[in-house]
């Protein structure tokens, strides 16, 4: 699946990944790959502008730590992020049912 097709859904996918627990950028990329069975052909670097955007919107929060001598930024969902994820899941349910009804 091309990155273009994911436009508009990346934020929701990241929030859903973080719902399982805090993670750093690489771990989020791996979780997206694993959970989608490798369906997303996403340049992993595009996750970072999205993570920063979500943080500016208050949907995720981050903290820095040091792992194996290098700095690591770990993200977690905020309360607003949990609400945002619930909203996106609801919207996706409506959209996917509507598309399915038309395409079927």
């Amino acid at each position, binding site marked *: 699946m091309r990155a273009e097709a994911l436009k508009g859904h990346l934020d929701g996918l990241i929030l859903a990944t973080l719902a399982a627990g805090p993670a750093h950028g690489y771990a989020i990329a791996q979780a997206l790959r694993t959970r989608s069975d490798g369906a997303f052909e996403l*340049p992993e670097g595009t996750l970072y502008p999205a993570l920063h955007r979500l943080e500016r919107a208050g949907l995720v929060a981050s903290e820095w730590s040091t792992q194996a001598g290098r700095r690591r930024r770990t993200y977690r969902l905020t309360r607003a992020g949990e609400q945002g994820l619930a909203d996106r899941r609801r919207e996706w349910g409506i959209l996917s049912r509507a598309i399915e009804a038309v395409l079927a």
Partner: protein
Amino acid sequence: MSWLGEFEEELRARHVRPAVRECLVAELADHIACEQEASPTQVATQLGAPREIAGQCAEELAAHDARHVAVGAFLALAAAGLVFLVQQATLARTGYPDVNHGYSGALALIAILAFVVGAQVALVCGVLAAWRAVRRWGVPVLPAAEIALLRRRTTIALGAGLVTTTGLLLYVVNFLAVMPAWWLALSGTLAAGATVALAVSLHTLRQGGSTLALAEGPAGDLYDDIPPLRALRPHPLVLWALATLVVGGVVTVAAWHAEHSLVEGLERGGFEVLALSAGFALFGRAIGARR
């Protein structure tokens, strides 16, 4: 050059603030190190093109900064507006001093001109900047032209705000010898505080305004911001005529009523028309009121 080196260069080329740049580079260095630990034989990173990732970061940062600074400036201007109202309300209680009873009649007139005209320019531009920022809140990437429009409106609003508070301070200084001490202390402190708030806001605008946005697209204009005015887009002079008629008329009637003098009303109304016309000529293009 390494992927990270190229990425950092691209961020620098887009004038991304050093603190943000450092965060992004550290995060992506960790990502690349994780990739290498997971598969040591992998040659290329799966991060994508450094220019595209850096560009996306810069575009989103520029849009975010422009919106936030516009809203922050509006809040600082609102505080300055409150100071202006408090000064005028307390002056109405103590009685307005005669312009010739201060240190200098000319200084008094300059101060009055500064806060009367400055406040109106700040109000119009500040509201337009904040309104555009709110309308486009949450849109990740804005066209570079639109970001430039937001910054211009914010800059003019803050500049006019500073002219206003400087006028208020000059007024206080001019009447040091004739006004009550409590009024001088209250007015001077509030005006100085508002000046500092506006100066801080202007500094933030200059810092946040450095990120280079390149996204294509139209800036939009005043007529996008206020849809009922769209029919006037091809005729900006009609907008100018209507605005001067309405504002000049309101000021004339209000001053006539307040001063019980039609001549006084016409003088103030005429001044308002002149000030509005000058503002339209000077800033109309910059704030998107005319092409």
